[in-house]
């Protein structure tokens, strides 16, 4: 190892290149892990907050046409949710497909009957109100800017809502538009109308009806905490009244699940390019190093060094350089991720910001990287570095002493 250590001093520039060849891929991979985790968290939060919650308790599978079955909210379920320490928050929703009409215009919408006093905790709509205010009681409604434009309505106008649920039949009512919200997704701004839960219940003529109980689980900060959700699902499924089903966010937002499943393999493949480039630099550096040292390696072989000793000396150098490079790169990457997060996250540039908005995400990424990801990135780069040095080391180990000692550089 002393020989390996001293060799680093011999060709400092080459040692520096080898160091950097391990440093940059590890740095980039760790930062990329941070960004992808930030994206995943953003998507997870927007999907669970805007649409699904961490899990939902429903009355069964979706009906024809996409409507959710109605069910009577059992008292024991409410008691169970109140008492369960694993549940952070829950609220009841009654979603009804409906036709919204104002004046001579009408448009197909999804009416969400919500509990206004509980909804602020989990839905961004109260905070997205751009005109007027959020609903406070029965008979009131908020609509998206796009729907308001299509129906040509303003705050204070009346909105006729004609619901048509396959189980409850037709229901109708008039709600006063008390607020207009700026939706993060165009589809949402065009189709979602929120009214008081009691208003929606009145239209289906069932005072205790619901289509879903949206539940948030304690201790979940992103998709990486999905195990907590799964645990809660299992627990609920065991004790749930008959006829009710539990759906987790993976079932409720399959496109998010798909993205989460492919994001890391895609990242790994992308990072692979940097690793291959890093490996090529290491290979080149060690090949030149062995070529320059041919005579010296011949002497060492002549003195009686085994092939294994030569391999170990050269791979030791590779391990040392790529280990230090990758470790520093990984640590710096983790430091950058930590620092960016401490400064409030990564504000994305214009075009990318729009892209994120389209997916309902805020244009600030909250980066996150785990010690395992840092360790994995470092170890992967060290592995690549040692593997890249293997061929030059193997060549060096097979040098014939006399031939090598005649070598002239």
């Amino acid at each position, binding site marked *: 190892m*002393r*020989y390996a250590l*001293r*060799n680093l*001093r*011999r060709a400092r520039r080459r040692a520096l290149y080898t160091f950097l060849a391990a440093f940059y891929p590890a740095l980039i991979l760790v930062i990329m892990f941070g960004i992808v985790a930030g994206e995943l968290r953003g998507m997870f939060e927007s999907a669970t907050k805007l649409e699904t919650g961490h899990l939902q308790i429903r009355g069964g599978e979706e009906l024809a046409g996409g409507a959710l079955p109605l069910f009577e909210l059992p008292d024991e379920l409410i008691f169970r949710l109140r008492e369960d320490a694993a549940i952070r928050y829950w609220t009841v929703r009654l979603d009804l497909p409906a036709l919204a009409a104002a004046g001579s215009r009408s448009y197909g919408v999804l009416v969400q009957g919500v509990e206004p006093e509980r909804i602020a905790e989990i839905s961004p709509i109260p905070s997205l109100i751009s005109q007027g205010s959020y609903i406070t009681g029965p008979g009131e409604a908020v609509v998206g800017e796009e729907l308001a434009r299509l129906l040509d309505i303003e705050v204070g106008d009346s909105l006729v809502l004609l619901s048509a649920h396959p189980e409850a039949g037709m229901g109708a009512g008039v709600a006063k538009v008390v607020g207009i919200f700026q939706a993060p997704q165009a589809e949402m701004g065009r189709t979602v109308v929120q009214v008081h839960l009691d208003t929606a219940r009145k239209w289906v003529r069932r005072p205790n009806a619901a289509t879903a109980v949206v539940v948030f689980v304690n201790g979940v900060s992103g998709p990486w905490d999905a195990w907590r959700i799964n645990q809660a699902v299992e627990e609920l499924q065991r004790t749930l009244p008959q006829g009710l089903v539990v759906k987790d966010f993976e079932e409720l937002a399959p496109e998010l699940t798909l993205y989460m499943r492919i994001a890391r393999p895609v990242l790994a493949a992308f990072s692979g390019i940097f690793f291959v480039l890093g490996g090529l630099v290491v290979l080149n550096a060690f090949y030149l190093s062995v070529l320059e040292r041919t*005579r*010296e390696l011949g*002497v*060492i*072989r*002549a*003195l*009686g*060094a*085994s*092939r294994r*000793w030569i391999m170990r000396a050269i791979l030791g150098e590779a391990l040392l350089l790529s280990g230090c490079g990758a470790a520093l790169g990984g640590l710096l990457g983790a430091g950058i991720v930590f620092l960016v997060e401490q400064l409030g996250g990564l504000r994305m540039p214009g075009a990318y910001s729009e892209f994120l908005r389209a997916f309902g995400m805020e244009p600030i990424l909250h980066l996150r990287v785990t010690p395992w990801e840092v360790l994995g990135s470092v170890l992967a780069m060290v592995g690549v570095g040692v593997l890249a040095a293997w061929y030059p080391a193997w060549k060096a180990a097979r040098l*014939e*002493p*006399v031939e090598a*000692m005649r070598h002239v550089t």
Partner: protein
Amino acid sequence: MSHEPVLQAERLVKIYRTDSVETPALRGVDLVIQKGEFTAVAGPSGSGKSTLLHLLGGLDKPTSGEVFLEGKPLSKLHPEALARLRLKKIGFVFQAYNLIPVLTVLENTAFVLELQGVPYRERIKRARAILAELGIEKYADQYPHRLSGGEQQRVAVARAVVGEPAVVLADEPTANLDGENSRALIDLMRRLNETRGTTFLFATHDMRLLDRVNRLLTLEDGRITSDRRQA
């Protein structure tokens, strides 16, 4: 000096082949080196001295014939077994010193012991002892490039003998030294031969150095033309 053969060559032939050209370097050398001998192989350039030393040291394979080291034939040995044998039984001194430039004098001297697996403390102790014996202990922490040619070659001799090999093979060890340093180096080797009983076989074309040897082999055109013992 005992009559115990350390090195033995039987009908040693070495022919270098490049494309269709064959160049015979050794044309059937028979030789026995006894334990404790201080032998010189003299001869003009191209007479086959280096080739003979390479074959005797197991650094190269003969075209035909056999080399025995302490009775063990070398030609059938796997390169790794040959390396182990060199490590334990043969010390080398090369014409161009060939010290490892990134190691200090002490580390260069202890290098063979490190390869032999001798524990750190012991190898440092033994390396220091031999450096002291050769009068170059003061250079222990210097790097080779700071030393003169004569000093570097002394370090090479220290490295060759520190592992207590059965024989030290020195290929033109004085070729890069001036007359005074050449003489001093041969005297040093002779002293080690006398005090430690180390067997030395060295090649040289400098006739002025031959009065110190107790056996002189003359090699000409790949053949031993004379084998003279002297007091």
